[in-house]
């Protein structure tokens, strides 16, 4: 009996022991899309990838928290975030190490941190999913406050996910006063709140609401499954603010135990190949490198009017407006 126990314990200990030629990556991009990329990296380089995935909408495990919790004793080498705000939070907490990847060349500086601690790639954009039968259609985010569209729109809970980032970006772009006035009008305009972008998209697909601001991948998946929807890029006219872009972000962890392999993975994720794969996958991410073929339903970044924001500023704003958003929801 005791021998069996001993063997069991030993096998447990050896299971977690780190191997040479490996890299540990924490991933907030959906596993469905990120895993194939990491598997390809393994195949091409022979470096074993140990991955830790986030679950739905960062509501559950929060690999971010692991990164924060492990600051004294980091376990991860690389973090693949599905939006740059998280990267900024980590940067502010001193968890990231700078790395200038050769593959970062050709990516617009809006999508990179100035100190090279993170770099964006393959992006989603925030656009309107609109039901085909909707009589009035929105063309600007500001239309949420348009009384002609009263009660027709829905938006995901602004306390979570890309919805938070987007609202925070509005605050930095418009200034606090104008943004708060907009939020107030939106409330008066009877805009519904859903629990996630996915739910918003479902509501529009079913015809319960006419339109919703969602991530491009949520809209595309509904369109591809034949739902009666179309999409509209908001604020594309001159002097309008443009569409909010949410790129993936890759970053190197300070004190990474496998930094050489980590840099290889860093470069791999920023490569044109990876961007092409993510564009073809169901997540339909828009490449940030020029000339990489994007998803056929979506315009390329260069064809879009992009909202010019400093993601570092957005991250700061996000923390600041947290109490305001809670209040706003409660009222």
């Amino acid at each position, binding site marked *: *009996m005791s021998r*069996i*126990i001993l063997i*069991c*314990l030993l*096998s*447990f*200990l050896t*299971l*977690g*022991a780190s191997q040479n030629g490996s890299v*540990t*990556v924490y991933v907030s991009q*959906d*596993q*469905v*899309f990120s895993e194939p990329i990491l598997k390809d990296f393994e195949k091409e380089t022979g470096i*074993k*990838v*140990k*991955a*830790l*995935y*986030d*679950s*739905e*909408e*960062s*509501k*559950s*495990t*929060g690999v*971010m*928290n*692991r990164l*924060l*919790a*492990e600051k*004294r*004793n980091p*376990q*991860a080498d690389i973090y693949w975030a599905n939006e740059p705000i998280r990267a900024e*939070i980590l940067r502010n907490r001193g968890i990231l190490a700078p790395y200038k990847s050769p593959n970062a060349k050709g990516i617009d500086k809006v999508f990179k941190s100035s100190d090279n601690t993170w770099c964006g790639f393959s992006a989603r954009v925030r656009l309107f999913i609109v039901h085909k039968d909707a009589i009035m259609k929105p063309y600007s985010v500001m239309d949420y406050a348009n009384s002609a569209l009263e009660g027709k729109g829905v938006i995901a809970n602004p*306390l*979570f996910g890309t919805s938070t980032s987007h609202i925070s970006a509005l605050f930095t772009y418009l200034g606090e006063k104008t943004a708060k006035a907009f939020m107030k009008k939106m409330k008066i305009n009877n805009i519904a709140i859903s*629990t*996630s972008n*996915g*739910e918003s998209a*479902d*509501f529009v697909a*079913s015809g319960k609401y006419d339109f919703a601001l969602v991530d491009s*991948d949520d809209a595309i*998946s509904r369109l591809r499954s034949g739902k009666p929807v179309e999409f509209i890029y908001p604020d594309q006219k001159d002097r309008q603010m443009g569409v909010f872009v949410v790129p993936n972000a890759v970053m190197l962890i300070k004190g990474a135990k496998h930094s050489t392999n980590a840099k290889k993975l860093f470069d791999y994720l920023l490569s044109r190949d990876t961007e092409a794969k993510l564009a073809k996958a*169901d*997540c339909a991410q828009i490449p940030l490198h020029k000339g990489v073929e994007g998803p056929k339903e979506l315009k390329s970044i260069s064809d879009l009017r992009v909202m010019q924001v400093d993601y570092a500023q957005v991250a700061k704003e996000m923390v600041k407006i*947290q109490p305001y958003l*809670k209040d706003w*929801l*409660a009222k």
Partner: protein
Amino acid sequence: MSQKLFSWIVFTIIFFICVSPVAVMVIEAIGKEDILIQLLHSKESLDSFFNSLILSVFVSFMTTLIGTLVGLILGKTNISLKKAILFLMLIPLLLPPYILALGWVDMLGVVGFFSELLFGFLGVSLVLFTLYLPIPVLFVLFYLKHINPHLEEAAYIYCDKKYVLSRVTIPLILPSIILSFLLVFILSFGEYSVANVLRYSVFPLESFVQFSAFYNFDGAIMMAMPMLLIALFVLFIEQFYLEKRIFKYKSFDYIHIFKLENNQKIYIVAIMIFCAFFMVVVPFWGLFSKIGSVDIFLIAFVKCLDSLLHSLLFASVSATILTFFAFIAAYIVYSKVFLVSKLIDMSLIFLFIVPSTVLGIALILFWNRPWIDFVYTSVLIVFFGYFAKYLFLGSKLIQHRFTQMPYSMVEAAMIFGADWKKILKYIFLPASYKVLGVVFIVFYIFILRENTITMLVYPPGYETLPVYIVTQMANGKEEIIAALCIIMTLSALIPFLLAMMLFRKKERA
């Protein structure tokens, strides 16, 4: 080594591995009460707290009420198909809770009238009800077996069967009813994966969000405190109220059975099968109908092979080690060594009722330190989580077996000069082989279905199947997720059925 010293060593291990993380967390929380007050002032926190409270009271009330009724029917009447009905009802308990919720979503879709009912209080209640119904049923069945049939016959001399039931049988099993109420209450209060799938705001989810979405450790710790208080309250009731009211259990040659008329039997069996079918088979049908073809199933199987292997390995290895420790712990609690037996007993109950999220956060905070990071960076941390959460279950089952053994067996061995180690090896161990097998299966299944602790603490690259399914839920293809759920179900059901067959064969022989 004396028995006393040995007992204290075992207690120290349990305390160090599992209790101290929670204790350290509480200590870290001291002085930060203002954060909690602030958190509880926010509308979502307060709403989610009341949602959780109402939900768990409702679910525990309903499961206890219906479960007692079902237990009485299965244990006390002569209806047929008892085992089939019981088995059908048991299935949800063998699986990660969210699977049933996903099944319903696949069945009803995300829009429409029924779906609106599903996403919210009613849906979460229905799934939790289905999930926890077997608990009161099993408790009631167990206690009914240990009622002296003469107590019921003595009443039958004076009154009809309805009164026998209400005046004697039910009062005698009342402790089991209260116990299952408390257990279901604490389990449903800590459960969040169903609420997560069905988009209903509950308190453990809120505390999880504090932890994950807002990167707020202090917040998460403070949100854990109300849950910890509720766990302590349940522990208090168990230790000081129930323990005195649980009448000594003894087995009897027969159970007093209430014979029903043939047409009554048919009605009751039909109703029960219909309900079990509705609650269990329908959601699984939802999953099956999503899969569509064998190819999808095979694709899902290939995708999840790694995580399935991890799951099977973790479950079998952990169950083996846990069975060993449960046996030791049960022996110490049974032999009533001064103070330490009580301490071990209370620690195990406490760890069992502490919500998994709290336990997981505590384990990370405690074990993620540079000089002991061989725990945190290996699967040992996952094992510690299982150890804390489930040791109680096995230890209780083994203790029950010990109390059934005549103590004279031990005394007889003592006369021949056997010390406690020899008695443990030659008397207790051989007498417990069967229950150890049962305990292994219980551990195996509970560890296999576990996803909360695992998800919080698993080391990179070692995800289990239930965790893999949860991460796939973000934008994964519905049919693949449905297929994964079926694979999960089979990997829990097959060993369970094999074990049942093995036990039956042995019993016949």
